[in-house]
């Protein structure tokens, strides 16, 4: 099977995010860059699918030079090859543009199943997988916590509000990974050594033949709204403190 995993390099989830004074973006100094959490699940599922059905795994990433580290991480986990789309025009691109660039690269190679993360933990947009599936005109299974690939079709479990859906789709299709899908493996030392020699194609916008037209533009960023300082309910007796809490929720907050 020809398996593709889209991976994005993002700030580590522990990173302190500071908005630049002019609001044009975030301060990148001191940030540790890692593979998007949900893409780790995607890569793991891609590798498991290959282990079961044979074939190879191609990872695709759009990002500046440093994104190569994330591609190498996926190669060290076991993927066979990479495509690195590196073009300053795609910096800060919206979901549509990002998906168009991924689609242009993926269209040139054979694929049976494509994995994305259910969202990237930097912009938290959660759109790219679905738009990519639309541009490739293939079905999508999003936010999937369990997957079976068998006999040319996939069956996935998708939790929704108050229920779980069991969804079936023919191949080729695109799956977006949610926590619960699997436990991503770590790259082994030999894996890291081998990854250095695996092939990675580097492409820019001109090579992909797309035009960049950003339709959802982040015009500015602000720190989160301050929460007013809270009230610690003092005292020694848990029952008295509990009663005071309930009184405050009723009389001050008026929410119960």
């Amino acid at each position: 099977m020809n398996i593709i995993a889209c991976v994005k390099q993002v700030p580590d989830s522990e990173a302190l995010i500071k908005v630049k004074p002019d609001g044009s973006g975030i301060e990148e100094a001191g940030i540790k860059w890692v593979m998007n959490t949900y893409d780790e699940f995607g890569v793991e599922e891609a590798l498991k699918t290959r282990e079961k059905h044979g074939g190879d795994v191609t990872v695709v990433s759009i990002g500046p030079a440093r994104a190569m580290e994330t591609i190498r991480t996926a190669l060290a986990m076991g993927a066979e090859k990479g495509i690195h789309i590196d073009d300053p025009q795609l910096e800060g691109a919206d979901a549509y543009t990002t998906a168009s660039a991924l689609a242009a690269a993926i269209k040139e190679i054979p694929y049976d199943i494509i994995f994305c993360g259910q969202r990237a933990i930097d912009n938290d947009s959660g759109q790219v997988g679905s738009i990519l599936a639309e541009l490739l005109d293939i079905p999508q299974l999003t936010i999937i916590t369990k997957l079976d690939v068998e006999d040319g079709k996939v069956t996935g479990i998708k939790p929704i509000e108050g229920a779980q859906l069991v969804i079936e789709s023919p191949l080729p299709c695109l799956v977006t990974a949610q926590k619960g899908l699997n436990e991503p493996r770590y790259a082994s030392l030999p894996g890291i050594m081998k990854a250095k020699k695996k092939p990675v194609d580097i492409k820019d916008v001109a090579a992909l033949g797309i035009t960049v037209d950003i339709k959802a533009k982040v015009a500015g960023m602000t720190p989160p709204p301050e929460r007013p300082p809270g009230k610690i309910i003092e005292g020694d007796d848990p029952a008295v403190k509990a009663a005071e809490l309930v009184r405050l929720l009723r009389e001050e907050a008026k929410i119960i």
Partner: protein
Amino acid sequence: MAKGVWIVAEQREGTLRKVSFEIATTARRLADELGEEVSAVLLGSNIAGIAPELGKYGVDRIYCADDPVFETYTTDAYAAAVATVVKENDPAILLMAASVQGKDLSSRLAGKLKTGMATDCVEVRIADGGLAAKRPMYAGKCYGEVVVSGSPQMASLRPNVFPAAENPGAGEVVKFDPALKAEALKTKIVEVQKDASGKVDLTEAEIIVSGGRGMKGSENYPIIEELADVLGATVGASRASVDAGWRPQSDQVGQTGKVVSPNLYIACGISGAIQHLAGMSSSKYIVAINKDPDAPIFAKADYGIVDDLFKVVPEVTAAAKKLLS
């Protein structure tokens, strides 16, 4: 010229979801500012009877497709149907819910309509005649001001954040038949496994009582469940209690769990790690019960009690029961 503010309403099993009224109310506000009308798209099976309800929340026209193919949501059928009616009518703005279904549908639609969308917004307004939105990024560590262009300009709204207010619109129901081609419907729902609890989902809950590692074991959750029962709340969990196997994955709140925005979030034995805060910091009121006065959760809490949760929580339950009975 694209004109009008549209929404995609959401129903489940023949009942309109609360978030539909939130987006309808928001659409009305934007439409009034532009001097335009509000239209809704409603898809389902045997749902014609509920369509007029949207009129109470400011919707002038409800495009309703009532067909067994829409019985359970599938991306294929819903996206094709909404795209058809949207293309025919060319609205300026299209608002949807950032619910599980809305996220899936809105993204596919943004692809079909080749347009811009801001997801999971907490504020939307008209700026320079177009749609501007505020949305959390980096798990709420900062907010982005997004200017949306394209046609229609799309945004999905975080449930429970926007008010729903009755304000009658014309409420005219227009039936439409999207004439779906069977071969275009590739995905199939083979089963719907319902949660036995019948509880409101975390993402829609008005009150959440959450337990973390401080709960010490699954056998202690009844004390949280009792408080939740008294308050009509849904039970949530930190990743530590999910990873320990005390609670199912579907209960996890946070960056790799659910993003929730209830009116009241009560965190019991949760330290307030940045990834947990990512999922709940937009709650209107936050209460923390934790024995460690330095736990970071207290920096976000409106009300805090520093004490042993095993002593405090049952007392809160007792006091709330007395008040609410």
